[in-house]
C-alpha cells in the first residue's frame, strides 16, 4: 500500500454492512487504487435512514448528531480534515441535512448537545463518494486510470431521489437534470444512456407497505431505460438497487450495479469479493464481456 494514501473518515451505515456489502467492498478497493483509504469511524450507530421532515422532530436528529460527534472526535485525534465520506444515499441525505439544520438554526444544535450531553461543534463536511471522485480525484484524472475497455457498454445512470433532493441543502447536483453520474460513466469510457426516468422515485420504503406499487414504479424506470437502449443501470443507493433488482427479476434480465462495482471493473481490479452474485440479476456475463486494454492485459 502506498504510504501517502489520504486518510478519509467513512460512515458506512447499516445496509452497507449487510445487504450491500459488495457496494462497500468495491468502493474501498477502488479508493485504495485511487490513492485514498476510507477509515470507518470507530463508534457509529444507524443514522435513522430518513431525515425527519417535520421541523419539531428533534428526536430524529439524535442518531445523526451522534455520528457527527464521533466523526469530529475521529478527526481531532488524527489532526485531519473533518470530511466524512458516505456511500448510501439515505445516510448521505440524513447526515448532510442534519448538519445543514444546525448551520441554519444554531438553537437546535444547542438543544441537541444539551440533550445528548456531548458536543457537536459543527465542523463536519458530509460528502458523497461521487463528490470525492469529482472534486478531489477529478473525472479527467479518473479517465486516465481506466484499464478496461467499456466502450461497448450502454449504461444508464440512475440517481433516484435522496442523492439530489433537497438541492438547497445537499448541493451535489441539479435535481432535475443531474450530470455527476453521467460524467462519471463518461470518464470510465462507457456509452452513457441518458433517459428521463433517471430521477424518478423507485418506491423507496413503500416496499414495506405496498410492494406492488414499488414493483410498478421500478418497472417503469427499467422499461424506459431498456427502451433507450441501456444494458445495465448504475445507482448509488442500496434501496434503489434492491427495488429495481427485485422488479427486474420479474420483468427481464438487466443487471443493476452499484457505480463502484463498475468502477472496480474499469480500474481492472479483482472483483471476486464484490458480491455480484448477491444481485437477483447476475451481472457476470456483462462483466466478463469487459476486457482489459492490451497494454494492461498481460500485467494481470
Amino acid at each position, binding site marked *: 500500500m502506498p504510504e501517502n494514501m489520504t486518510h478519509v473518515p467513512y460512515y458506512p451505515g447499516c445496509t452497507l454492512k449487510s445487504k450491500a456489502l459488495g457496494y462497500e467492498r468495491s468502493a474501498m478497493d477502488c479508493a485504495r487504487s485511487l490513492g485514498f483509504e476510507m477509515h470507518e469511524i470507530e463508534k457509529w450507530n444507524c443514522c435513522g435512514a*430518513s431525515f425527519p421532515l417535520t421541523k419539531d*422532530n428533534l428526536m430524529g436528529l439524535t442518531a445523526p448528531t451522534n455520528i457527527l460527534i464521533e466523526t469530529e472526535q475521529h478527526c481531532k485525534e488524527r489532526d485531519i480534515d473533518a470530511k466524512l465520506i458516505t456511500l448510501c444515499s439515505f445516510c448521505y441525505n440524513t447526515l448532510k441535512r442534519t448538519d445543514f439544520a444546525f448551520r441554519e438554526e444554531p438553537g437546535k444544535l444547542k438543544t441537541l448537545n444539551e440533550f445528548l450531553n456531548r458536543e457537536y461543534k459543527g465542523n463536519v463536511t458530509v460528502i458523497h463518494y461521487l463528490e470525492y471522485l469529482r472534486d478531489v480525484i477529478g473525472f479527467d484524472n479518473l479517465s486516465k486510470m481506466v484499464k478496461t475497455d467499456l466502450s461497448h457498454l450502454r449504461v444508464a445512470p440512475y440517481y433516484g431521489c435522496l442523492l439530489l433532493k433537497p438541492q438547497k441543502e445537499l448541493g451535489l447536483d441539479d*435535481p432535475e437534470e443531474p450530470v455527476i453520474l453521467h460524467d462519471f460513466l463518461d470518464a470510465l469510457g462507457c456509452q452513457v444512456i441518458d433517459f428521463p426516468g433517471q430521477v424518478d422515485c423507485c418506491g423507496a*420504503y413503500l416496499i414495506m407497505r405496498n410492494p406492488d406499487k414499488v414493483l410498478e414504479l421500478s418497472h417503469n424506470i427499467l422499461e424506459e431505460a431498456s427502451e433507450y437502449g441501456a444494458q445495465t443501470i448504475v445507482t448509488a443507493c442500496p434501496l434503489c438497487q434492491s427495488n429495481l433488482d427485485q422488479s427486474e427479476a420479474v420483468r427481464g434480465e438487466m443487471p443493476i450495479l452499484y457505480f463502484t462495482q463498475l468502477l472496480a471493473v474499469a480500474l481492472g481490479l479483482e472483483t471476486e469479493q464484490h458480491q455480484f452474485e448477491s444481485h437477483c440479476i447476475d451481472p457476470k456475463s456483462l462483466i466478463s464481456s469487459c476486457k482489459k486494454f492490451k497494454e494492461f492485459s498481460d500485467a494481470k
Partner: protein
Amino acid sequence: MQINTENNQAAIRDLEIATGETISDCYQCGKCTAGCPASMDPSPSLLIHLLKLGLFTKAVNSASIWDCMACLTCSERCPKNVSPAAIIEGLKRIHLNNMEPEINLNSLGQEFLAHSTQQAVVSGFRKFV
C-alpha cells in the same frame, strides 16, 4: 384509525408549528401533484386545499397520506416554497403519535425481512410505526 378533531383551526395551527410550514402560502398551482409519482388520491395539492378550507379532519383521515414515499419531488418543485412532503409527514405523525401503527409488523413475515435492505426497514419503521 380515524382521528376526531374538535377544533379544526387549532389542529391546523398545531400542524403548522410542528412542520414549520405555512398552509396559506400554497396558491394551488398543482405543480406538486403533477410531479407526484405516488398516484395519491387525494393528491398532495388537494390535501393542502382541504387544510386551506379548514377541513383538517378530512385531510388527516385521508388514506393517501400513507402512499407518499417522501421522494421530495413536490417540495423541490413548489414555486411557493411549501413542502407538501413535510405537511404529509406531519399528518402521518398525528396518527402515529396515537400509537396506532399503520402496518402490522407481524404480517411482514420472514421473507420480507430476509430480502429487504436495512434502510427500508428502518425508514418504514419511521414512517409507518
